[in-house]
């Protein structure tokens, strides 16, 4: 048994920035077995509208406390309702779902998160940090629209002892521009792996950069999902070799080179 459907208690709700919320659940079963890059599906509301669960990357776990966090942006009705969930409420979580990142050597890892793509990166960073020997830690590049959105999250990475290279659209923090600019500037060696999550155009740019520099690249992609467990075949992701993979069960993390990027 590695996947669970559980009613779990919301134990903390934090507004991180405007329209960005972090929820902490007491979900020991899921938290204990979860891997970075995996996700949960959360049932919203009590009625049949909205009908489907909403998928969220696992942002962080504290196995000792049995807690699990998600970090999300309010973009529609489901996330709006979730943002207003009250501490103490019981929500139904399904997870952990999907295949996560394949972790290589911490010293040869570069994590790139953009926008809400930062969510799974914290969990990934903390696993790397746990595995790292002699203080060799991965590089971390985070991008967002502005410092307001980015600053609170950078703190979490720094708390792990990781240095963060920042990029913002408005230049209010770090590099004024894209995370890809930063990635280009730091010149990773060919034995590095880039682990990335963010909007599709960002992932495409990173993929092309890595391709050119012959660097391995894993990306976590999004897709509309109904079941989250490989049953509905709704979450098709076009493959370079033709046909489709399923984001929920074959992914959401893929080797960037396996996917079809020019749609």
């Amino acid at each position, binding site marked *: 048994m590695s996947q669970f459907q559980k009613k779990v208690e919301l134990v903390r709700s934090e507004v991180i920035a405007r329209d960005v919320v972090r929820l902490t659940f007491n979900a020991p079963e899921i938290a204990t077995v979860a891997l970075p890059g995996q996700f949960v599906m959360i049932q919203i509301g009590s009625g049949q509208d909205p*009908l489907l669960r909403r998928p969220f990357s696992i942002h962080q776990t504290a196995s000792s406390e049995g807690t699990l966090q998600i970090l999300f942006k309010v973009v529609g009705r489901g996330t709006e309702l979730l943002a207003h969930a009250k501490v103490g409420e019981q929500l139904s979580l399904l997870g952990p779902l999907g295949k996560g990142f394949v972790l290589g050597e911490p010293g040869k890892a570069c994590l790139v998160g953009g926008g809400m793509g930062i969510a799974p990166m914290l969990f990934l960073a903390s696993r790397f940090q746990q595995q790292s020997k002699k203080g060799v830690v991965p590089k971390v590049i985070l991008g967002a629209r502005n410092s307001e959105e980015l600053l609170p999250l950078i703190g979490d990475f720094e708390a792990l002892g990781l240095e963060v290279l920042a990029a913002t659209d408005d230049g209010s923090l770090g590099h004024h521009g894209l995370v890809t600019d930063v990635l280009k500037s730091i010149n990773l060696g060919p034995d590095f792996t880039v682990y990335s999550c963010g909007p599709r155009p960002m992932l495409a740019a990173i993929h092309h950069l890595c391709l050119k520099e012959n660097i391995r690249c894993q990306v976590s992609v999004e897709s509309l999902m109904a*079941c989250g467990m*490989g049953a509905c075949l709704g979450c098709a992701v076009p493959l370079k070799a033709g046909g489709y993979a399923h984001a929920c069960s074959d992914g959401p993390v893929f080797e960037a080179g396996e996917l079809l990027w020019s749609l």
Partner: protein
Amino acid sequence: MEPVKMKKDEVDLRVTIGSLELQNPVMTASGTFGYAREFEDFVDLRRLGAVVVKGISLAPRAGNPPPRIVETACGMLNAIGLENVGVDRFISDKMPYLSALGVPVIVNILGDSVDEYQQIAERLAGVQGVAAIEVNISCPNVKMGGVAFGTDPKMAAAVTTAVKQNCQVPVIVKLSPNVTDVTVVAKAVQEAGADAVSLINTLIGMAINLGSRRPRLANIIGGLSGPAIKPVALRMVYQVAQVVTIPIVGIGGITTAEDAMEFMLAGASAVQVGTANFVNPKASEDVVDGIAAYVREQQLDSVRDLIGALRVG
């Protein structure tokens, strides 16, 4: 069915679909339960009445480009495009697990021509563990200009006959709701030898993104399922129950045991849980439990007492 003695405290949930005996009336709907294995962490699969697997075609199909699904009010649209591994890989890769489960496995099949349906049925004949075939006639008939088999009683009957001739196991024909009169098609497939009918498949629907001015599905149109369609499904089951003598499997928006039993009152001998599996992967087992609890509480001799027991007038 001649009920054999039940264990004390056990409720009698058994129903029959043609020559197929089910331990209870709860199946999973095709396309909503994968190949069952996906649900093994959530459902005690052996407790289900039957498992209906994703629709299988002769050759593997890649399916439609994304987006393939979209949520609607109390429902969802899907345009999966019948992605599946094809009958041969289904038999070699999926059936071993399924047949080991010990519950009846019903294989949902689909084709673009009568010939294709027939060939799939031939391949499945004699395959260990295949308890019945459910014929999805909602697919377009490519040889006849793309009109769905399920909307023309003659074509529906032709498919039924072709499958039935190549099949030892019961044949369930799955009806499309996108017709003026579902009873006409139901009668046609009964006459053509169907052992049962199941209904409803999805209603054809569409969703539009105002911002992009594009359809929300790459395929433009898709199939509507979920609680939203339950009233239409219930009506069609009731209508069909008035005109056929073969068993009916009720489908459409079933989420709870109450829903399932309403379909039985309307005339269904069994039911399928579909979209609800996505929201609650344990839904099918919960429906079994709920029906058992009701039969016990109401002290019914058997769940079969519910079939067609609607009081009208």
